[in-house]
């Protein structure tokens, strides 16, 4: 039985695209996910959920007051809803599956700030720009004269996709909204495409999924229609196009050649996708033997819709890595009158150590983050509702709530991190983990200060959770401290693993 909702079947989609009714030539080969044998065979999937502007640390924290000077952990499974911090309270119902990580630092940003201000050669040192560019790269930004700084290397969501992607499926998806600059980068200066329109994102999926509405046990195979033949020839068109790329690439200079070779590979990937769709899954595994139900409820606002789509894409194994950029909130959504400048009047005034602090701004910024916690909880609800091998999709995923900045006042430390789902048992969830200050920063206008371990090392853990244990660092391997000694950004973090 189908769920109610906005189900666009592939035939309607293709008809709308002017491609004719796209039913399958061999209807007996419908969507037949193969059955996973045990949870050990399940792929770990990853979602990077990114909200703007940072948090309000005292209203986010789940730690014991007065213990900031030590590394420690705290069991949060027994906490009541009221004992949860105001910002994280909406996540209380998922507390068994949460790992709240406090005290990490955006160390690579601090390293670049040092360079920017030491050299002072017209580099862009804007906190938003730097931290957006570093969030998923942990690497030097691309600084160009007369231009703002942007991502300077392939971001980790793309690299993860390269490593764990399945042929014929997407390596990675970037869904959601626009902050100032992109977070996800294909290469230095080249942002990854981000889909803003949920229905377009769904149409993309339907272009990849087999048509489930066909009967799976036909009695009489019908001869293909003209439209079906044309649809089937799309792979031949792609094959032809890819060969044209092969022909021209060797005639070009090295940079242009690499660009066309990358393009050629993407055409080949799409060709495999379409071929897999036509032959019914192409051997792709859908975890737990669950029937992939390509139904999109399309209910709620755009954020809810993207949460549904992310869940759909991961549960149908259309991709294993998704980056989800949250929508910037309207003032009225967190109780602030329209016309107030959220950035200038709320975020910048929200931390007690800031020069222009006001309690009202702190309260608004707290509410701002609580609303995002609700959105994050909604995504977790969706993922926890998909059964897989006796557990759920959420249990087999790593869902990370990242934010652009540490605080509304652009702090690079401490950075709030919430991991949900254990990644098939990699992370030991149901806990709050605090890292204390361990390194002296090389630079600050207010004098040097101490910071916790690099957030980049949490990303190393995520690589390891996905079986990529050869990865020892992401982005920069180290930056320099106050005395010119290296602060290492290598290796997974202690205290996180199960």
């Amino acid at each position, binding site marked *: 039985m189908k769920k109610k909702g906005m189900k666009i079947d592939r035939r309607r989609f293709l008809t*709308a*695209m*002017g*491609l004719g009714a796209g039913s399958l030539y061999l209807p007996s080969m419908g969507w037949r996910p193969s059955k996973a044998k045990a949870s050990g065979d399940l792929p770990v999937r990853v979602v990077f959920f990114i909200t703007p502007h940072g948090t309000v640390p005292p209203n986010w924290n789940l730690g014991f007051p007065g213990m900031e000077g030590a590394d420690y952990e705290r069991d949060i499974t027994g906490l009541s809803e009221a004992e949860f911090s105001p910002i994280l309270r909406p996540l209380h119902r998922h507390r068994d599956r949460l790992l709240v990580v406090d005290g990490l630092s955006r160390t690579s940003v601090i390293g670049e700030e040092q360079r*920017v*201000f030491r050299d*002072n*050669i*017209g580099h*862009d*040192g*804007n*906190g938003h720009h730097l931290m957006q560019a570093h969030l998923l790269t942990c690497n030097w930004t691309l600084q*160009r*004269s*007369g*231009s*703002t700084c942007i991502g300077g290397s392939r971001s980790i969501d793309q690299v993860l996709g390269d490593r764990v992607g399945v042929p014929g499926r997407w390596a*990675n998806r970037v869904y959601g909204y626009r902050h100032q600059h992109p977070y996800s980068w294909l*290469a230095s*200066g*080249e942002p990854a*495409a*981000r889909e803003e329109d949920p229905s*377009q994102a769904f149409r993309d999926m339907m*272009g990849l999924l087999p048509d489930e509405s066909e009967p799976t046990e036909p009695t009489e195979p019908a001869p293909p229609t*003209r439209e079906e*033949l*044309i649809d089937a*020839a*799309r792979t*031949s*068109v*792609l094959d*032809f*196009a890819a060969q*044209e790329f092969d022909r*021209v690439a060797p*005639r*070009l*200079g*090295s*940079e*242009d050649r690499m*660009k*066309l070779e990358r*393009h050629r590979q993407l*055409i080949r*990937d*799409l060709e495999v996708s379409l071929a897999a769709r036509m032959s019914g899954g192409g051997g792709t595994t859908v975890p737990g033997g669950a029937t992939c139900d390509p139904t999109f409820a399309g209910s709620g606002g755009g954020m809810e819709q993207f949460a549904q789509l992310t869940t759909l894409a991961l549960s149908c194994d259309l991709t294993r890595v998704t980056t989800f950029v949250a929508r910037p909130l309207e003032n009225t959504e967190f109780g602030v009158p*329209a*016309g107030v400048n959220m950035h*200038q009047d709320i975020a*910048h*005034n929200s931390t007690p150590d800031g020069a*222009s602090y006001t309690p009202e701004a702190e309260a608004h910024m707290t509410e701002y983050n609580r609303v995002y916690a609700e959105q994050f909880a909604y995504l977790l609800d969706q993922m926890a509702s998909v059964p897989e091998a006796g557990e759920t999709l959420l249990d087999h995923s790593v869902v990370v709530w990242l934010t652009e900045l540490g605080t509304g006042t*652009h702090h690079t430390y401490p950075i709030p991190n919430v991991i949900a789902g254990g990644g098939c048992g990699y992370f030991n969830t149901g806990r709050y983990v605090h890292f204390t200050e361990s390194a002296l920063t090389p630079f*600050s*206008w*207010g004098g040097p200060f101490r910071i916790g371990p690099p957030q980049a090392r949490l990303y190393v853990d995520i690589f390891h959770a996905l079986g990529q244990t050869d990865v020892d660092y992401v982005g920069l391997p180290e930056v320099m401290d106050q005395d010119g000694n290296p602060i290492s950004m290598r290796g997974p973090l202690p205290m996180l693993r199960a």
Partner: protein
Amino acid sequence: MRDALRSFRRGGRTWGRAAIAVATLSLLLPACEGAIGDPEAIGPGGNDRPVVCEEGGLVLGSAPMRRLTNTEYRNTLRDLFGSTPADLPTLPDDALREGTFENDALALGPSDVRVQRWEQISMALGAHAVGPARANVLPCDAGEADCARRFVEEFGRRVMRRPLENDERDRYLAFFEEQREAIDFDAAVQLTVAAMLQSPWFQYRIEVEGRGDYEIELDDYEIASRLSYLVWESMPDEALFAAAESGDLSRPGEREDQLRRMLDDPRARDMVRNFHRQWLHTERVLGEEKVPEIAPTWSDATRQAASEEAQRFAESVFFEGTVEDLLLSRAAVVNADLAPLYGVEAPAEGWAPVTLPAEERAGILTRVAFLAGEAHEANGSPILRGLHVMERFLCLPRPTPPADANTTPPMAMEGEGPFTNRQLFEQRTAPDRCQGCHETIDGFGFAFEHYDTAGQFRTTDNGMPVDATGVAYGTGNDGEFDGAIELSERLAESDVVRDCVAEKWFTYAQGRLLESEDTCQLDEIQNAFEAAGGDFVQLLVELVRRPEFAMRRAAEGE
């Protein structure tokens, strides 16, 4: 950077200007600690090799392959098919970042999403080709002898923007025949069109045909595409193809003739608007909210009208005027949404030409799109407005603020004041470590204090008289001014501004950031622009007449 460029100028006149630039720099350097004027800041990769310009010598910058921008892709499809189906899938955004344009080759690569959307669009246009666009695609009927070959050759030439090579034609023809045999003639057309639209020759602008080893003379079809994508952001038309076929485009005079012809086409007007949308960021105002106490009628319609007015103004100045007109002309078009902000009578319907009040307005820097775009909700931002002048009209890089700079709009503390907007900003940037840069930034920005957050003219601010006086630094025409009109007059006569405008157009034409190798060519173009009195059409004429327009440097590894 500018002094690096200047130092290569030859002859008394240009050296004279170099002296100005260096003198300017000395005012900024001690304060800004090298943030401005560092030769390392040129181009990606810190290309700071010294370049020597010789009389009649050529120094060529790089010519990276450019993927079609979304605008170019859509325009090209429109011109290929005469029409396009509604509801095509959306394309991922092209990045527009400060200091560059959407056609920046570095950012124009493929992605999985784009490749998938292009595939869908190619198939949809294939269907369109045997439907409504049949006459634009097929030169013959299916029954006619040799129709497949004619279709592949003639439509293929327009898609690839050059005649197909023989083996290339044979490949498409073989593909066509295969599909015709498997399905039918129309399906073969549809699928062949889809294959052509996914060819690298269509999706990218590839230059590999020219003659030469290192300094390569482009072939005529490559020159035709350079012209058409510069002037129309689209493919060449038949007249331009004909000129390419006759081998005329290597002659500067022929390129000029073609340019002038093409500028008369409405597609050139679209390009001019698109350029100014990016250069002057005329869309910034679209996201701006205003407090109702100051601008009670501010609405989406107002924002749209402000953006549209700026683009119409820039468009008319480009075709009929000069840099001076851009900065000083009071000619405007307004509609009922915009007229009240300028204090002029609203037209009964639509848009109508007006002359704005002489005491209040002059040129683009006194228009609502700029004034209300570079502003906060309740007040104009002298800093944003000043940076706009510096970055977009003087081609100065934005200095780096300290990490802990307070960037909120300043407000009076309880029990203090009242203050004007200017006084609040002056207090904020008073510390020495701010003044090094803010003396210049705010020096420009305070010129606009006669305009409130919505761009309305005012003589008082918070009950006190407006102070819009200041001193311009770094303009090559420095000195005191009182208000935006006097500042605009200084800028209108500034060599630095005129050179900067030329640099922006040059960057747009190159599709990349400046490189040190561009120095000599840009210098010549700037000199010609000066000689032409800042006439924009002449600027483009000089650009396409240059020998470099018909040449490229061999790429690394080619």
